[in-house]
């Protein structure tokens, strides 16, 4: 630091070194220092700049970086601003910085620098130069800080108001300054009106409504300013507040500039935009841009053929409307190139009264030119074009062929009507001279014209004269220079675009600028336009001369105007002629280069313009045309862009070179330096030429003593103006780039579109061809298919035929086979039949053989038997013979014996016959007996059946009986139980009684006891007896008696029991009724049926019955007797004693009762006996009489019995009978 510090002061002057290398080093060093410790060095730099106005320092300052430097820088500048002395350089520096557009520029609004600037503009400063510079800075700054307008808006307006009224308030100020000031105010007006229309208008309204300002308004504001603006759309749609809104944010700086320019009607201001519109027009096919022009300017219709959109605006408005067709045109083109230059020119024109004076002449001349030139012009262009047809297109192509070509080509080819043809050349000229100086000049004239309208009209004549002289002088110089420096300037030919600037400066500065122009003119080799442009000034002499001629020609016009017309007319001629000359000159020297460049730049326009056909050959030489079509266009665009950029860069470089000195070795910088050097020289050395030069300046009325200062400040002002214009141009360039980009994109897209369309077409063609081929293929296919079909059908038919043939063959074969088979079968059958027949025959024969053999054997056996029988016969015959002999010998004494036998037989027969008779009788008797017995049997069976039925009934009854028996038993058990209960109860009671002690009522108790005693005793007996009784109850009746008699006196019972045995007889009288019941299961004998059953039962079981009977007889005779007594109630006379009965029974069994069974007993015995035994038959027959005998005496019982047993006995009787 310490080491560096002192060196810093030394370093800064070193910036001015001429050694480039050293310069680079120093610059790097400073930059390095800046980054490390900014403020001191920065201050130093600023001071240095302020002192020396060093461009190098300026350059460094402009590139100051954001972080800290800008603050220091701004502070420093603010500080300097306050000082009256260094205000101007500070402003200049500020202008530089601002134009550099550092990234932090928007922040400037926040720093006091702006305030101090405003303040200085508004109040403090009175120096015009400072004011103008400040206003220009402000104008430049405004679009950069649109936001700040909010706060400072009224200050802006105040500044405007103050400056507008400046010249009125300070009439002593030099006219030159006033013009500058006015121009800058005019710009400010446009800027403010463009940016804040509502506010501004309201300000104007309020400000100029005041009486004291009315004059200013009338003088300054109304006439030039308000007349040159359109009504701002924002005035209709916007509001005061709205336009202060941050709507500007979306705009870039150049957008704002253009926006402002849009509302301007001043071609110079507005041309910014128009230039933009026409610029692409020149570069690209007109078709695209036409509409743009139309939209931007409804007036263009008339002039659409040459499409200068600015002209329409200007033509109606401007005081010199028709002639403007040329100037505005040139103006537009000049704006394209370099807006600053036009400004500059305008500004420069003013001081150079010779210049500016010429300008007003322009417009009338052009007006006249419109009226008059057609006659002369109509001829000349044709000539020109025909003459230079080969060159013009190429020129157009280089820069802005589109328009120019169309314009130039049409006259060339189709000689239009005079009026139009007249126009075209005019157009074509500007088109040709787009970047050339002549338009610049025209611009300058135009601009000056607008300005002059404001300022000075009086010195037109003088200016004109001056201009002419100056021009002549210049041209002379340039011609000389051209000749001298021709070779030198060739390399800088590319900078032809800058030529206007230089030329303008030249016009100001003198010979050096002339050199520039010369160099520019020399550039033609590379860029024809520039060369053409450059050449035009060269021909200025010619033009002047020609213009003189023209003026003479156009005699109708006035003095000066005629001259102007002449000039005007001379331009086209010049432009037309000069390139040809130059080209002619040039072409041999560097034709190849040119051609290649042309080819590179302008293939497409070349192709489009019919007039350019001859040149195509040239192009084709350089480049193949096929490639040129597309690539060329692209390259042209690219090159254009590059050229533009290069141009802008160059311009910058020029500026740099002009302001900062030469940074690089480029010629432009050299030129810049030259300018400065020239100015320096002008200041220091060439004092003498100045007065001579500034002879015109005296006309401005400024003091000659001030001239130097004036000139210096003028120079400064011009420089400022120039810088401002350059800045504007930069903005336009930026915008251009953007628009260009868009256009490129659009065209690229369009190209793409076209390509795709082509592709589409190709594809559609392809498709159609394919379709056709498809159709063909289809047709072929169809044909093939048909062929195939036919073949197939044919084959099918063949197959069918073959099949048919085969079928037929098959059928035939089958038939054949069948017939053969049948035949074979038939044969086989026949053979089989034959075989069978043969077999049959064989069998038959075999059978026959067998039969025969059997027969043979039979016959053999019969033969044997025959022989045997024969033998027997023989033997028998012999025996017969023998027996015959014997018989004869025996048969005499047999008759006697026979008779005796017969007698015996007869007797025997007799006895047998008698016997037979007896036997028959016996048989008869037996038969009878048998029948009797059978009837008996049947009856008995019937009886048995009946008995069975009865038995069933009885059984049924037995079941009932059983049930009742069960009931009875149950009852018995109940009774027993009840008895037990009772006894139990008794015992209980007695026990209770015993337990009761003897009391007064003993008697009673005694009686009771008496009465109960037997009971008790009996009871006790009963209780003891009970088991026994129960046991005995089944058999003994005594129990029943005892039970019955239990209520009788106990002793009697006690007696009874022992007595029962002896009293059996008595008891028997009682019991018999019971006896039969108990005896058996027989039914009771009481009933008749019962007796019957009993009899039957007896019959059934004889032996048992017999035994029982016998038992009965034995055991119960008295019962029987009793029975007889009781039941039959038969008064039995003799009470039969058992013994007698027994005797009777023993002696003669048939007692009345007992007899009855006997016959029944006997009868069964007899019946079987009769059948078996004959002898026993006698016995019953013998017995029966005896029975009868026996019965008779038996008496009464007998018949009774018989009655009872009718059936039995009847039968027996029958038997007997």
């Amino acid at each position, binding site marked *: 630091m310490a080491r560096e510090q002192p060196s810093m002061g030394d370093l800064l002057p070193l910036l001015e070194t001429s050694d480039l290398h050293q310069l680079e080093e120093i610059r790097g060093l400073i930059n390095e220092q800046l980054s490390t410790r900014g403020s001191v060095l920065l201050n130093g730099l600023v001071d240095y700049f302020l002192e020396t106005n060093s461009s190098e320092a300026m350059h460094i300052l402009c590139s100051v970086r954001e972080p800290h430097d800008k603050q220091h820088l701004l502070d420093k500048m603010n500080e300097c601003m306050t000082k009256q002395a260094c205000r101007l350089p500070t402003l200049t520096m500020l202008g530089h910085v601002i134009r550099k557009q550092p990234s932090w520029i928007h922040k400037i609004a926040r720093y006091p620098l702006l305030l101090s600037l405003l303040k200085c503009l508004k109040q403090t400063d009175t120096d015009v130069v400072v004011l103008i510079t400040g206003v220009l800075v402000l104008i430049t700054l405004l679009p950069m800080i649109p936001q700040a307008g909010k706060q400072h808006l009224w200050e802006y307006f105040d500044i405007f108001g103050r400056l507008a009224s400046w010249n009125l308030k300070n009439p002593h100020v030099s006219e030159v300054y006033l013009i500058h000031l006015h121009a800058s105010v005019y710009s400010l007006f446009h800027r403010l009106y463009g940016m804040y229309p509502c506010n501004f208008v309201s300000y104007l309204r309020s400000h100029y409504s005041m009486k004291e300002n009315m004059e200013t308004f009338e003088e300054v504001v109304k006439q030039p300013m308000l007349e040159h603006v359109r009504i701002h759309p924002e005035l209709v749609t916007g509001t005061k507040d709205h336009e202060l809104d941050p709507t500007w944010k979306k705009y870039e700086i150049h957008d704002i500039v253009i926006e402002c320019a849009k509302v301007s009607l001043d071609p110079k201001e507005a041309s910014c935009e128009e230039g933009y519109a026409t610029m692409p027009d020149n570069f690209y096919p007109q078709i695209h841009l036409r509409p743009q022009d139309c939209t931007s300017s409804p007036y263009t219709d008339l002039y659409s053929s040459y499409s200068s959109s600015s002209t329409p605006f200007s033509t109606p408005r401007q005081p010199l409307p028709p002639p403007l067709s040329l100037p505005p045109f040139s103006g537009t083109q000049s704006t394209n190139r370099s807006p600053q230059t036009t400004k500059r020119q305008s500004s420069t024109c003013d001081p150079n009264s010779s210049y500016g004076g010429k300008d007003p002449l322009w417009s009338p001349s052009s007006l006249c030119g419109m009226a008059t030139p057609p006659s002369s012009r109509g001829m000349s262009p044709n000539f020109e074009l025909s003459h230079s047809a080969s060159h013009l297109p190429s020129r157009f192509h280089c820069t802005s062929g589109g328009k120019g070509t169309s314009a130039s080509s049409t006259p060339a080819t189709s000689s239009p009507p005079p009026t139009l043809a007249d126009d075209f050349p005019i157009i074509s000229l500007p088109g040709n001279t787009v970047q050339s100086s002549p338009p610049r000049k025209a611009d300058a004239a135009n601009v000056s014209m607008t300005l002059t309208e404001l300022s000075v009209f009086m010195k037109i004549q003088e200016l004109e004269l001056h201009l002419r002289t100056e021009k002549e002088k210049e041209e002379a110089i340039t011609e000389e220079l051209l000749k001298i420096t021709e070779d030198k300037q060739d390399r800088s030919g590319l900078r032809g675009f800058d030529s206007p600037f230089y030329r303008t400066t030249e016009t100001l500065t003198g010979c050096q600028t002339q050199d520039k122009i010369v160099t520019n003119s020399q550039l033609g080799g590379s860029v024809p336009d520039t060369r053409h442009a450059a050449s035009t000034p060269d021909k200025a002499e010619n033009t002047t001369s020609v213009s003189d001629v023209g003026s003479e020609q156009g005699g109708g016009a006035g003095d000066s105007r005629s001259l102007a017309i002449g000039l005007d007319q001379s331009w086209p001629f010049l432009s037309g002629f000069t390139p040809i000359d130059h080209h002619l000159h040039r072409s041999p020297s560097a034709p190849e280069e040119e051609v290649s460049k042309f080819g590179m730049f302008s293939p497409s326009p070349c192709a489009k313009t019919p007039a350019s056909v001859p040149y195509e050959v040239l192009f084709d030489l350089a480049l193949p045309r096929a490639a040129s079509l597309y690539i060329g266009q692209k390259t042209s665009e690219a090159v254009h862009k590059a050229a533009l950029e290069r141009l802008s860069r160059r311009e910058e470089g020029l500026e740099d070179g002009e302001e900062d000195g030469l940074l690089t070795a480029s010629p432009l910088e050299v030129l810049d330096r030259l300018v400065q050097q020239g100015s320096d020289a002008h200041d220091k050395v060439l004092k003498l030429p100045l007065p001579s030069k500034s002879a015109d300046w005296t006309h401005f009325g400024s003091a000659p003593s001030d001239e130097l200062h004036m000139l210096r400040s003028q120079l400064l002002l011009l420089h400022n103006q120039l810088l401002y214009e350059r800045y504007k141009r930069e903005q336009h360039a930026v915008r251009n780039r953007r628009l260009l980009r868009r256009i490129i994109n659009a065209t690229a897209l369009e190209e793409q579109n076209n390509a795709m369309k082509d592709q589409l077409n190709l594809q559609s063609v392809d498709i159609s061809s394919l379709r056709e081929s498809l159709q063909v293929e289809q047709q072929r296919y169809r044909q093939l298919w048909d062929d195939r079909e036919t073949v197939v059908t044919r084959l099918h038919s063949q197959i069918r035929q073959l099949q048919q043939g085969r079928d037929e063959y098959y059928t035939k074969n089958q038939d054949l086979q069948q017939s053969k088979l049948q035949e074979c079968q038939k044969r086989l059958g026949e053979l089989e039949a034959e075989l069978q027949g043969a077999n049959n025959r064989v069998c038959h024969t075999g059978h026959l053989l067998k039969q025969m053999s059997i027969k043979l054997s039979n016959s053999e056996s019969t033969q044997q038997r025959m022989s045997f029988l024969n033998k027997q016969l023989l033997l028998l015959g012999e025996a017969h013979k023998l027996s015959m002999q014997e018989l004869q010998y025996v048969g005499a004494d047999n008759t006697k014996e026979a008779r005796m036998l017969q007698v015996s037989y007869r007797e025997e027969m007799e006895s047998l016959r008698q016997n037979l008779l007896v036997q028959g009788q016996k048989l008869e008797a037996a038969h009878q007996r048998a029948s009797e017995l059978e009837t008996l049997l049947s009856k008995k069976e019937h009886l048995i059946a009946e008995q069975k039925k009865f038995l*069933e009934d009885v*059984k*049924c*009854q037995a*079941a*009932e009986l*059983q*049930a*009742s028996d*069960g*009931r009875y038993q*149950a*009852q018995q*058990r*109940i009774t027993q*139980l*009840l008895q*037990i*209960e009772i006894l*139990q109860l008794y015992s209980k009671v007695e026990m209770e009684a015993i337990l009761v002690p003897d009391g007064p009522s003993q008697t009673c108790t005694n009686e009771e006891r008496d009465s109960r005693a037997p009971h008790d005793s009996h009871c006790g007996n009963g209780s003891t007896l009970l088991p026994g009784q129960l046991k005995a109850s089944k058999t003994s009746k005594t129990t029943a008696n005892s039970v019955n008699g239990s209520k009788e006196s106990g002793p009697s019972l006690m007696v009874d029991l022992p007595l029962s045995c002896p009293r059996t007889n008595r008891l028997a009288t009682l019991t018999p009724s019971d006896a039969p019941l108990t005896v058996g299961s027989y039914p009771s004998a009481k009933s008749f049926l019962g007796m019957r059953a009993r009899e039957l039962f007896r019959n059934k079981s004889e032996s048992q019955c017999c035994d029982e009977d016998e038992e009965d007889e034995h055991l119960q005779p008295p019962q029987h007797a009793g029975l007889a007594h009781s039941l039959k109630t038969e008064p039995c006379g003799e009470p039969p004693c058992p013994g007698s009965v027994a005797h009777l029974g023993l002696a003669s069994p048939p007692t009345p009762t007992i007899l009855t069974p006997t016959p029944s007993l006997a009868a069964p015995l007899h019946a079987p006996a009769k059948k078996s035994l004959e002898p026993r038959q006698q016995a019953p027959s013998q017995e029966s009489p005896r029975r009868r005998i026996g019965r008779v005496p038996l008496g009464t019982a007998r018949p009774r019995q018989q009655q009872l047993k009718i059936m039995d006995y009847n039968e027996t009787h029958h038997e007997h009978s």
Partner: protein
Amino acid sequence: MADDPQRNFRSAYYEKVGFRGVEEKKSLEILLKDNPLDLEKLSTFSQRFPLPSMYRVHVWKVLLGILPPHSDSHSLVGSYRKEQYQDIMEALEVMRFIKSSTPSTHVYLRMFQLESHMLPRCSEISPPDQENEDFLSISQAMEEIVEDSVDCYWLIKSFISQFHTKFGDSVPHLPKSLEHFLSQEEPGLLSHLKNSGALAQLPYHLWFRRCFAGVLPESSLQRVWDKVISGSCKILVFVALEILLSYKIMLLGISRPEGIVKFLCNIPQENTDAIVTKAIDLWHKYCGTPIHAM
């Protein structure tokens, strides 16, 4: 039976197809029309076929001798029976063995005791012993089957006396035969029972003394008793066997003999009909369908 002319000739097919008992009612009615009822035929019928419930009581009464075969004397005998019942009843009431509140089964028990000389004295009435318990459970079941109390009493009495007289000897052998059939049908179960020791403890008295009274619901029970009354005590074995088979899985699941016995004493009442049907089938299978004695 088969050649009974009045019988539907299709009955054989009915049986084949599975409609058992279609013609039974008709044939039973035919049987009941005979005047001296053929007891043999009746018993064979009731062994072969299930009795229609409307004739069941009547048939039982005939088979048990409560009504004589002669239908003529039915009313008389019936009146006798009724009188006897009433007499006994009155006597018991008089002797205060029974009251109006005494349950009918106990009344029947007293009556039966009275008729069989077993009635103890009032003061000596002891809690019912095993035999009385059997009687009570049987009478309980019978009471469910028969509405009329007279019939009920007679049926109980006759059933028990007939069972004792007819099968008194064979009842002790029934467990053996059960074991035999079980070994034929399901030896696994038998071994399980044997192993667990439950075989000896099976509720034989419930099955063979009470004839399943209290074990099976009455609807199933009466079908078993049909067979018992008609003279077969083997059916008891098969019912027991079928019970064991039906609850085989459960029994196999129980290992403790007490559990088995407890389960068997309280078998579920759901599908006893099926058990009885199977048991009858099984019985027919092993003992053969009783052919008509004629």
